[in-house]
C-alpha cells in the first residue's frame, strides 16, 4: 500500500509489513486494514515459504521411515518441538504435545486427565470470561462425573474478582482452567498468583493461552502451571497446529486421548503398550507441514522480540482507546488495568453486524458478534461487540482509518 506508516520508536513497521504479502491486497477497492488478529494473524513470507519448501523438497511421513526424506521431515518436525520448548520455557521436549489447536489441547486434558481424576462432588473452577472451548469440555465432564462447575465472576471493568476465587478454592477443588488473556476483552489475568493459590489446595491448573502466547512472554516453568494450551495460527503460524504443554509427571500418569498409529509401543490382539511421551498423545500422522512451518513463525517473533512487539501493540491499544472514546455513543467493553491488544466496543443504535458490514465495505476487517463467549456477553447484557485486535504489523494510521470508518457508521445508522 502507498500510505506512509509512521515508524514506531523501536520497530520499523513498514519493513515488517513487507514481510506479510497479504497486506498488499485490496478489499472493496481499498487497502486491506486487518484488525482481526485475535481471530487469526496473517502469515509472514517465511512461514509460507517453509510450507512450500517442505512440500517441494522433503514431504514424507515421519518417525517411521528410514529413507532420506523421512529423516529430513522427522528432523524438521522435531526441531519445532525444541523451538516450542524454548519459546514457552518448558523443562523438557517430552512435555510438548502437538495438537490441532487450543481447543484440542483443552479437550485432551478434559478427556484424559479429567476422566481419570474427576469424581462425583469434585469441583472445577473456570471464569465468566472463558471462550466456549474452555467451558463446554468441562460442562460435559462435570455432567458425566457428577462434578460441580464453579465460575469466577468479573467486575464491570472485565477483571476477575479475586476474593470470589479465593472463596471458591477448597478441598473439593480438583482443577482450575482459566483463560490467560480474554479474547473478547483483552484482560490479562494474574495467572501466576492464581496458580499458586490453586496449588495450595492441591488443585491442578490449566491455562488457556490461545490469546496470550503471541502477546506475553510465556514461561510455563516460572508460572508453574500444570497445563498450557495455545494455537499456532494466532501466533503468525499456520492453521491446524496447536501445542499442549503438560508437566511430565501428569502427562505420564494420563491415559491416551486418541488411539492409533504412532502412539503405541507394541500391539498384539490381546494387549497394547503405549509409546513414551510425547508420542503417546500424538496418534496418527500429525500435521507435519504446518508443524514444520510453525518454527518459522516462532523465529519471526523471536527475531523482532516479544518485548518490542508488546510495546508496539500497547501503543496501538492505548491510541485506539483514546481515539475511539471520542466517537459519540461508543462504549468500550473491558477496561481492565492489565490488558493487551484487544479493543471491544458497542455503539448506541448500531448492531455489531452493521458495524462489521460497513467497516468491511471500507476494507477494514474487525470481528463482530459474541466472540464465542456468550456467558461474557450476558454478563454485560449485550448481544455482542465489535472488536479490533492488533498485531505487530498494524499502525496508528490504520486506527485513524478505523475511527473514520466508525464516524461514518454512526452517521449512517443514527
Amino acid at each position: 500500500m502507498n500510505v506512509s506508516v509512521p515508524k514506531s520508536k523501536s520497530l520499523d513497521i513498514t519493513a515488517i509489513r513487507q514481510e506479510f504479502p497479504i497486506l498488499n491486497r485490496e478489499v472493496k477497492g481499498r487497502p486491506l486494514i486487518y484488525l482481526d488478529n485475535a481471530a487469526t494473524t496473517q502469515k509472514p513470507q517465511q512461514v509460507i515459504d517453509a510450507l512450500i519448501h517442505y512440500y517441494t523438497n522433503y514431504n514424507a511421513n515421519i518417525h517411521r521411515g528410514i529413507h532420506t526424506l523421512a529423516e529430513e521431515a522427522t528432523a524438521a518436525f522435531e526441531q519445532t518441538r525444541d523451538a516450542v520448548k524454548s519459546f514457552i520455557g518448558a523443562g523438557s521436549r517430552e512435555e510438548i504435545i502437538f495438537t490441532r489447536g487450543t481447543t484440542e489441547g483443552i479437550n485432551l486434558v478434559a478427556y484424559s486427565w479429567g476422566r481419570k481424576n474427576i469424581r462425583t462432588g469434585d469441583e472445577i473452577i473456570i471464569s465468566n470470561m472463558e471462550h466456549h472451548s474452555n467451558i463446554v469440555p468441562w460442562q460435559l465432564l462435570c455432567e458425566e462425573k457428577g462434578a460441580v462447575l464453579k465460575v469466577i465472576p468479573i467486575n464491570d471493568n472485565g477483571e476477575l474478582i479475586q476474593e470470589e476465587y479465593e472463596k471458591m478454592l477448597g478441598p473439593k477443588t480438583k482443577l482450575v482452567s482459566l483463560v490467560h488473556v480474554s479474547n473478547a476483552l483483552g484482560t490479562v489475568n494474574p495467572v501466576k498468583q492464581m496458580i499458586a493459590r490453586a496449588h495450595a489446595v492441591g488443585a491442578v491448573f490449566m491455562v488457556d493461552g490461545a490469546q496470550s502466547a503471541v502477546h506475553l512472554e510465556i514461561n510455563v516453568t516460572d508460572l508453574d502451571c500444570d497445563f498450557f494450551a495455545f494455537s499456532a495460527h494466532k501466533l503468525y503460524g499456520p492453521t491446524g497446529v496447536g501445542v499442549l504443554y503438560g508437566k511430565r509427571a501428569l502427562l505420564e500418569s494420563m491415559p491416551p486421548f486418541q488411539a492409533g498409529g504412532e502412539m503405541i509401543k507394541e500391539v498384539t490382539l490381546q494387549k497394547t503398550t503405549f509409546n513414551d511421551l510425547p508420542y503417546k498423545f500424538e496418534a496418527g500422522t500429525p500435521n507435519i507441514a504446518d508443524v514444520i512451518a510453525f518454527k518459522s513463525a516462532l523465529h519471526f517473533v523471536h527475531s523482532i522480540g516479544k518485548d518490542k512487539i508488546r510495546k508496539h501493540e500497547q501503543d496501538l491499544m492505548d491510541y485506539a482507546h483514546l481515539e475511539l472514546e471520542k466517537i459519540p455513543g461508543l462504549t468500550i467493553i473491558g477496561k481492565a488495568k492489565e490488558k493487551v491488544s484487544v479493543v471491544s466496543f458497542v455503539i448506541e443504535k448500531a448492531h455489531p453486524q452493521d458495524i462489521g458490514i460497513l467497516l468491511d465495505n471500507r476494507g477494514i476487517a474487525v470481528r463482530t458478534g459474541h466472540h464465542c463467549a456468550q456467558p461474557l456477553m450476558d454478563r454485560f447484557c449485550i448481544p455482542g461487540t465489535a472488536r479490533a485486535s492488533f498485531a505487530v504489523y498494524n499502525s496508528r494510521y490504520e486506527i485513524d482509518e478505523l475511527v473514520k470508518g466508525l464516524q461514518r457508521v454512526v452517521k449512517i445508522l443514527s
Partner: protein
Amino acid sequence: MNPHLNIAETEKEIIEEFALFDSWDDKYEYIIDMGKRLSPLDPKFKTDENRVRGCQSSVWLVADFRDGKLFFHADSDAMIVKGLISMLIRVLSGRTADEIIEAKMDFIREIGMTTHLAQTRSNGLLSMVKQMKHYALAYKIKDPVPSKN
C-alpha cells in the same frame, strides 16, 4: 410496495434504483433507510417461533393471509438486515401464494447482494426468502382455493 406493479416489475424497479448509486457506501445507506421506513412489528410476534436463523442478528418474520394474498411483517435488531427484509417485503408482500412460490428473486443477485455480502450473511438473506416461500406453501396447502373473507 406499489400495488400496481407485479413481482417482476417491482424487482426491476429495485434494480434500477440501485443502479443510481456509484458506491456501496451509498447503497448501504439506501438499504438502511429502507429498513428505517419498515412498519414496526408488534412485539408480541417477536417469539422464537417467528425467528429466522441468521449468523449474528435476529430476524422475526410473520405472515397473514387476507383476500387470497399473503402480507408479511418483519423486524430485525440489525439495520442492514432490516433494510434487506424490507426489500423482500416490497417484492413479495400482497401477492398470492402461487406468485410468491414462483418468484425468481433474481434482483438479489442483480443488485450484487450475493457477491458483496459474505456467504453467511447472504445465506441469511436467502433463508428469509425461503421462509417467505414456506409461508406461501403452507397457506396454499391449508387453503387451496383463495378464500373471500
